[in-house]
């Protein structure tokens, strides 16, 4: 079965219905993110539907362009048609949910949405989001059974949920290892190595990959191997990826011997334990939980715990916590400064950044925000961003390294 997905969650549920091909954000999402011209073409197609670029989630906006141009069923590899069977999405932010709904209506495809709940009420002690999420998972299973005509294998669900837990805990351990001085992986390297966890988190092969990666990183840290050899300043990159300009953006601090590091994207794929002050450490491994998974209900409960209790995703939107969480993260990463991207194309990730910036500065942590769009080149002024960032880095006392 061929499924278009928005968001990476709930893979064990899909897997329990047998083999499937998952097109997260559509087949042209990746190619377009590397090709500004193609991106603009997609955005313009969406603009034509009276959904203005620059006012909408830009990742969803260009995905919508793919759908409108009829490319959501065309493989970018060989131009072969591969029709979609349905759309399945798990999302916490409204633009993603609405985009999937609109794509479903344009393509005439059945669409199912799972809503991830969160609460930003500090005094709330009885938030019943878990039962709500489990209820939606049960409905998703019923819906998928009707839509695909396939049967649901509980054994597969139980195995893959445990895989996802382990994969996520290992990802958190990888990230924690990367906090070392010198940093063994910069932001871009860590982000790229985290994609396996994003795409295959419920697969035993991803668990194995993360184990190998963790071992190698620990070895690198023990031997003091750094990402770039020179580390004059450690800048926490707490922002959405600017996909089409990422390598050039990452190179800006290198001119000064500094580097961008951090886990903004990769941490979404980790399983975490949060202390009362909001500090993050890896969640316990499955065998440490003393939980047995003997039924569908057990598996869904574990999955709900992973997404609600152990994930950083709801915490991205919990503004009450976000400033202190970011300060702890900056300190845990032994950061000299924090850079945040006010993304015109993503309200969810940018949420609270101005407040975070003020809070960080009040606590002696230099912080800087810059503006643009993460996936619409029409709203990203690369020259301006470079100048602003260089000015900020120089304000930290950094000077360009002599050219080799």
């Amino acid at each position, binding site marked *: 079965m061929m499924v278009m997905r928005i968001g990476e969650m709930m893979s064990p549920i899909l897997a329990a219905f047998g083999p499937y091909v998952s097109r997260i954000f559509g087949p042209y999402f990746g190619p377009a993110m590397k090709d500004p011209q193609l991106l603009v073409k997609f955005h313009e197609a969406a603009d034509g*539907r*009276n*959904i*203005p670029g620059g*006012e*909408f*989630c830009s990742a969803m906006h260009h995905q919508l362009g793919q759908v409108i141009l009829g490319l959501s069923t065309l493989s970018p590899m060989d131009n072969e048609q591969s029709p979609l069977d349905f759309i399945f999405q798990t999302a916490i*932010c*409204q*633009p993603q*949910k*609405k*985009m999937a*709904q*609109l794509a479903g*209506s344009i393509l005439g495809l059945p*669409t*199912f*949405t*799972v*809503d991830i*709940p*969160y*609460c*930003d*009420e500090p*005094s*709330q002690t*009885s*938030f*019943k*989001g878990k*039962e*709500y*999420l*489990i*209820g*939606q998972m*049960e*409905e998703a299973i019923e819906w998928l059974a009707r839509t695909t005509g396939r049967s649901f294998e509980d054994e597969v669900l139980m195995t893959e949920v445990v895989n996802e837990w382990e994969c996520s805990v290992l990802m958190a351990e990888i990230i924690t290892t990367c906090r070392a001085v010198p940093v063994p992986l910069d932001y871009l390297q860590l982000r790229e190595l985290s994609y396996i966890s994003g795409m295959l988190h419920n697969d035993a092969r991803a668990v194995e990959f993360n184990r190998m990666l963790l071992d190698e990183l620990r070895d690198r840290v023990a031997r003091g191997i750094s990402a770039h050899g020179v580390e004059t300043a450690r800048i926490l990159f707490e922002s959405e990826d600017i996909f089409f300009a990422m390598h050039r953006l990452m190179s800006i601090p290198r001119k000064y011997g500094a580097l961008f590091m951090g886990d903004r994207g990769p941490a979404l794929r980790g399983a975490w334990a949060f202390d009362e002050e909001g500090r993050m450490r890896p969640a316990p491994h499955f065998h440490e939980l003393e939980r047995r998974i003997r039924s569908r209900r057990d598996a869904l409960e574990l999955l709900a715990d992973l997404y609600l209790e152990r994930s950083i995703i709801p915490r991205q*939107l919990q*503004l*009450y916590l976000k400033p202190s969480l970011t300060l702890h993260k900056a300190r845990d990463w032994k950061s000299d400064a924090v850079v945040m991207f*006010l993304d*015109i194309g993503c*309200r*969810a990730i*940018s*949420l*609270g*950044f*101005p*407040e975070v910036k*003020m809070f960080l500065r009040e606590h002696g942590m230099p912080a800087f925000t810059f*503006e643009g769009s993460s996936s619409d080149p029409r709203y990203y002024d690369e020259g301006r961003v470079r100048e602003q960032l260089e000015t900020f880095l120089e304000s930290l006392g950094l000077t360009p390294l002599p050219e080799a």
Partner: protein
Amino acid sequence: MAQPSVVCGAWLRCGTIRELLPDEACSMTALDNMEQVIADRHGYARQWKARTGGKVVGYFCTYFPEEVLYAAGVLPVRIFGGHEPQDVTEPYVFSMYCPYARDCLAQGLLGRYDYLDGIAYAHSCAHIQQSFDSWRRHIPVEMSHFLFVPAQLHSKGSAALFRDEVEGLRSKAEKWLGTTIGNGDLARAIQAYNLNRRLSAEVYEQRKAHPPLITGTRATQVVLSSQLMDKEEHNRLLAQLLQEPSQPGSNGPRLLVMGSICDETEVIQLIESLGANVVADDHCTGTRYFQGEVSPDGDPVDSLVERYSNKPPCPVKDFVDDLRREHVGQLLDEFKVEGIVVLRQKFCDPHATDQAMLADLFSQRSIPTLSLELDFTTPLGQYRTRVEAFLEMMALEEVG
């Protein structure tokens, strides 16, 4: 010096319409009273506090169950913008958040809402959440509350979660006020709110006539003022309004306005000044505020959850069931709509998508649509040109 009351008379307790009529003669019409409350909303709230000694809580979003606070003697007032140029929100909110959300925060930061004792938010969109968060951080209030409202309102577990959230609000209010909010208190609040919904619906029914017996501007004032006033006082104005001679609209084309939150009447007034009738709306500050009553039977919290889960949905609460199409289609039929003006806040993703999803419904019915983008201030000159062109186009199509 205390300001004079904008609401006439000493009001009786709620009951039938006859009982609701003011017990003193009043020189102002009900609509004039409502208009004045909108114009001097802060004066009204301050005066209400002085009169009653009660507390006032500002809230964001039409999914907030006001009845819980009203049951404790609190006046819930919906936070509206001021539509004036401002430069105070920039440090707190990125400029690509919707103008309504930033305008509301600006009003708070400028001290316009300095009489509020609390601030509350029912979870709807990121834009308003951002303003709520900055409000609770930077504008002193005794109490702030975030209430999660599921986006999948008809899913397994959604009612239990919503119920828990409403109970959470009840407990917090009880602790804050040092009182108990009993089921009887809730039932009385529900009764006052239900009456308000019923009377508002009755006013809106007058818009079905041709020409409508009340203009769109006046009807909008009725609902906006309801969100700012003590419901029992507003109920009396509604009862008075239903007894007063009607102020019919024109014989012009019948329009529906819809889209994001619309907390002012200037645009509607402009449209009607150009000869059209705004006969219906699909705004959370309009019909979606009052449609659907709370059942007076059973547990009041369950009944509140049922009402707020089943009222005509906002696009951010309409998943899987896809109820918006049916709801808007019904409005088009019932109010014999000939044209649509979409009023969308700049940067409002949910309504941009909603508009795209409903586009084929409008084209199937051959209903012309004009889309206007709302910002801090209302560019009336530009809107006038566009609305004039739209109405001319409608007239030409009719001739053709």
